[in-house]
């Protein structure tokens, strides 16, 4: 062992010299994408990846940033915490400056510490309030927190709809639990009557047993804080079982696949989210959506992809402004941004990385699967 040790250190030293040399020699700036490219939320993940690549191509066409080309390194975290931890290590080893993603709060949280230790910036659409609890200087949220949505939901339920018997359902993910808890808290603050708080197992497909139990309580509304893959089935099975209550979905139900899964039953669903991509009032949004459509012959999966794109745009903007690749300097610059014109509205970050703002709306799904704004 003793004889082996100097050899080992020597070879390690050679390795690290080689690695640092190769990093210094490259004339590119690497940006990571950590998103669920496959698995349950593949639809969202691929859209994030597409959006990032579109913006990067546009930058590279103009000569890149700081005179260097930008290279995108994508890692598929499948929306799970285990894969997210692997992705974080991989992207750090690749030498990325910043990581866009992930889509789910759970996968984002699992990767946070690794990026923070390596000094890699991370910006994610994860809405779980716990994401900013660590106060990592590397983390910036490009969406709005669950607590903002929860306050809006409570106001809508109590002041708008005047629901008397409320059922709250969530899955076990960090995002969904967090949103449900925040909503319950906000509802209780308004003295609302919650008759049932339950959980479903994401991906288990069969929710009839839970729904049958709910049916006996004759609720006015079933609120689901999970993702579209379960939400669509929940809605379809609710209608099948003849439960008359309104179905209100949290932001992650806002996805074209929700409509496909719920089928005919989608009609009448109430969805709470920030504005959908097609009704964003900003010119920059219209240009982006047209470019996206031209390049990928599809529309972005949801507003979440656009929020991630805004995260990337803010970082690249600050890089150009500060003329620096140093992540400390960029983080400093991000904090100083004030109403940076984003696709999803003005971008301003709080000291702890939280994006300031909100602007939630409720949409009712029409028979032709289009949206009608019913409350804002």
């Amino acid at each position: 062992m003793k004889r082996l040790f100097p050899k080992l250190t020597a070879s390690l030293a050679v390795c690290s010299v080689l690695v640092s040399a190769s990093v210094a020699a490259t004339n590119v700036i690497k940006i990571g994408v950590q998103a669920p490219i496959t698995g349950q939320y593949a639809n969202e993940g691929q859209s994030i990846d597409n959006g990032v690549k579109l913006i990067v191509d546009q930058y590279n066409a103009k000569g890149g940033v700081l005179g260097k080309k930008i290279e995108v390194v994508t890692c598929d975290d499948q929306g799970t915490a285990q894969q997210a931890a692997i992705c974080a290590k991989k992207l750090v080893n690749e030498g990325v400056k910043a990581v866009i993603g992930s889509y789910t709060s759970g996968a984002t949280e699992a990767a946070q510490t690794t990026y923070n230790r390596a000094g890699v910036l991370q910006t994610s659409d994860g809405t779980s309030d716990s994401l900013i609890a660590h106060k990592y200087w590397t983390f910036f949220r490009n969406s709005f927190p669950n607590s903002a949505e929860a306050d809006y939901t409570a106001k809508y339920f109590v002041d708008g709809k005047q629901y008397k018997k409320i059922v709250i359902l969530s899955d076990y993910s960090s995002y969904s639990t967090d949103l449900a808890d925040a909503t319950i808290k906000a509802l209780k603050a308004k003295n609302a009557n919650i008759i049932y708080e339950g959980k479903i197992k994401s991906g288990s497909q069969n929710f009839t047993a839970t729904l049958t139990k709910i049916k006996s309580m004759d609720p006015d509304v079933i609120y689901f804080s999970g993702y579209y893959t379960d939400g669509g089935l929940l809605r379809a099975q609710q209608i099948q079982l003849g439960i008359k209550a309104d179905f209100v979905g949290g932001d992650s139900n806002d996805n074209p696949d929700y409509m496909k899964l719920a089928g005919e039953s989608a009609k009448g669903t109430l969805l709470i989210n920030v504005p959908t991509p097609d009704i964003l009032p900003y010119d920059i949004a219209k240009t982006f959506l047209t470019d996206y459509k031209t390049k990928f012959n599809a529309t972005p999966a949801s507003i979440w992809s656009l929020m991630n794109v805004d995260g990337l745009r803010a970082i690249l903007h600050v890089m150009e402004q500060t003329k620096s690749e140093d992540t400390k300097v960029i983080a400093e610059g991000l904090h100083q941004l004030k109403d940076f014109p984003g696709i999803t509205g003005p971008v301003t970050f709080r000291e702890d990385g939280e994006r300031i703002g909100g602007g939630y709306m409720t949409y009712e799904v029409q028979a032709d699967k289009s949206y009608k704004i019913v409350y804002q």
Partner: protein
Amino acid sequence: MDIFLQQMVNGLTIGSLYALVALGYTMVYGVMRLINFAHGDLVAFSAFIGLSVYAQIFGESVTSLGAIIVVFALSALIVAFVGVLLERLAYRPLRTAPRLSAVVSALGAGLVIQNSVMLIWGPNMKIFPSNFFPATIWEIGGIVITFTQVMILGVSSVLMVGLYFFIHQTKIGTAIRAVAIDQDAAKLMGINVGRIIMIIFIIGSALGAVAGLFIGSYYRGITFDMGWMYGLNAFVAAIMGGIGNIPGAMLGGLLLGLFNAMITGYISTQWAETFTFVLLIAILVFRPTGILGETVAEKV
């Protein structure tokens, strides 16, 4: 009371699906003493094949009895063919090898099928059209039964009863039972064991195919890795009923479905799976051969 009855309907529906899948496990085990771990993935494969057949031939729009029968028959045929292929490639070369080799081969074959499904149809969730079966709903005394549920309960009952009579009343059925009791003796009596095993795989895979299509039309969203969940539950059902025993697999499947529905409905979602395995352990401790398992116990 009507909640209880509704839970019964929910439980029996999922239970018949488990039972159909469990039959595939139990028949292969009965004859070959092999847990065919690839069976669950075959079920997932059949859901994808069924969706493609439906989309290719009928453009996902026609709902007629004829169309549905064509889709079911064609998918069952394709899946049965893959099942036979599976036996040829993964199990036949290992028939005289130690049992562990065959089990490892089964796990490997399952991964091959699962990843092939992912490569062919992509990793994203695919969605069955909502008009595969008519959206008719009956409400009887507060209990809701959908057309799809009636189809699942009806077709699986017919298949299970049919299989029972096939095994007990026909010549081939007698041969299957003989092979299950003693392969060598059966061979000496002039039974072509290779052919019997092929028949077992055809029947098991075809039943799995029917279950896969029902899962797709009932739950709508199908993923390439869903086979594991249904496979595991059906495997538990087969053990509960007594593995190797055909009525046992049916009973085990129905009981497991009911048990799951009741636990989810009356206790909580997060405990449903835990209780499933607690029940499995309890059965293995107090009745190691399963509920109806005494007929095969003599051999193990």
